[in-house]
């Protein structure tokens, strides 16, 4: 095969543009899904069946269907119901719904790893529930939560490629458009793969930073 990576000089603006969309989409989904996931996690173990049961059903359903189908439901299924969204917000909404329940399970495991006495100590001081969750409990879930959280975040990053199906101009879609015009699929797709690998690497670096923080403060060891 006659490789010509000189083509990069021509295609990089398009790939860079696609990468930016991929990054934006990934961040938007993480920013929206993470707080929702915390609420899902708290709700899944709520004392109130009216909160607990619907969430259990939704969790089972959403985690059981293909993500592409969720995307199609949002993009093609909602407009007739009166909610027509552009491709990018459609993708954010679909992946947020989907991931809120995946991350929800992650946080749920994390919450269960914190000794109940920590809630009691915060209660005894008169702290509000919301403050207890954010300041006292969630930071302590970090060691348990971080590795699965990052591996799911990596799934989000890779999953953004699905958004190409509703014409979001993210990295995979940009790469395809570029190689169709340049007739250099291999080189272009290799470059796209390298960019994904670098973005993955950034997520892993975040994980290590978080683990170092947890080790330094001692959240990772019961005492």
């Amino acid at each position: 095969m006659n490789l010509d990576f000189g083509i990069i000089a021509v295609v990089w603006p398009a790939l860079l543009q696609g990468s930016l969309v991929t990054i934006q989409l990934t961040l938007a989904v993480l920013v929206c899904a993470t707080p929702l996931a915390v609420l899902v996690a708290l709700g899944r173990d709520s004392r109130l069946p009216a909160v607990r049961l619907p969430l259990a059903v939704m969790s089972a359903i959403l985690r059981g269907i293909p993500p592409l189908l969720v995307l199609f439901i949002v993009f093609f299924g909602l407009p007739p119901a009166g909610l027509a969204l552009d491709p990018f917000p459609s993708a954010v909404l679909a992946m947020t719904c989907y991931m809120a329940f995946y991350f929800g399970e992650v946080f749920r495991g994390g919450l269960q790893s914190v000794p109940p006495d920590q809630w009691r100590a915060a209660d005894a001081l008169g702290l509000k529930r919301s403050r207890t969750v954010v300041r006292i409990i969630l930071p302590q879930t970090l060691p348990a939560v971080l590795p699965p959280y990052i591996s799911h975040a990596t799934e989000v990053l890779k999953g953004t490629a699905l958004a190409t199906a509703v014409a979001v101009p993210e990295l995979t879609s940009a790469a395809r458009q570029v190689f169709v015009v340049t007739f250099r699929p291999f080189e272009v797709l290799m470059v796209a793969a390298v960019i994904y690998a670098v973005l993955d690497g950034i997520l892993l670096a975040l994980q290590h930073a978080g683990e170092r923080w947890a080790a330094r403060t001692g959240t990772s060891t019961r005492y």
Partner: protein
Amino acid sequence: MVEVRNLKKQFGSLVAVEDVSLSVKAGEVFAIIGASGSGKSTILKCINFLEPPTAGEIWVDGRRVGVVQTGGRLRPARASELRLSRAEIGMVFQNFNLFPHFTALQNVIEAPMAVRGLSRRDAVDLAKELLDRVGLGDKFDEHPRRLSGGQQQRVAIARALAMRPKVMLMDEVTSALDPELVEEVLGVMKTLARDGMTMLVVTHEMAFARDVANSVVFVDGGRVVEQGPPSELLRAPQEARTKAFLQRILRTDA
């Protein structure tokens, strides 16, 4: 300062506390003694409603805890009202329960800032003063896991004191400590007592009860068996069950 009237607490079908009435005056140290499982911790947890009582009344500083009277009618306190009551009641646990991701100082300033609305600067000043008072003036920035048990428990005492509570509830605060660390915590408690803090203390430290408490109550099977000044209850118990308990505990102490 603290009135417990006919307190009852049931867990399912298990009656953990039955018809307990206690009266603690301001500045008094009130010791609760009794065997394991007799309901001592449950009594303390009912006072700040960490466990809502099944029946009975709790009064702290003239105010009913957990129940609010509006227009001649009684209703359970809302979460926000309960938080206000709890802010007035300090609690120290057997296992310290410090927040492990916070330094000693952060452990102490968290609640005054969040609940009392203190500025960070005021909270830090207060926290440093209190940590100094419990002998940890050089440990502000240490995380709990780098402190000994005795030091952790003293941080926990400072954390509770930072809310300027009207009363302190202390549940076997020296039981998880190595013997050589017990004295430093008891020392802090003695200082508090001398400074006039009202305290309810669940303890197996009979010497502490004898020397510091104004009143001792012996509970067994969730009920008060005998109550009185330590000089009487510990030296000349009237009830057979009290005698048996004291004999047992003094034997293991020696």
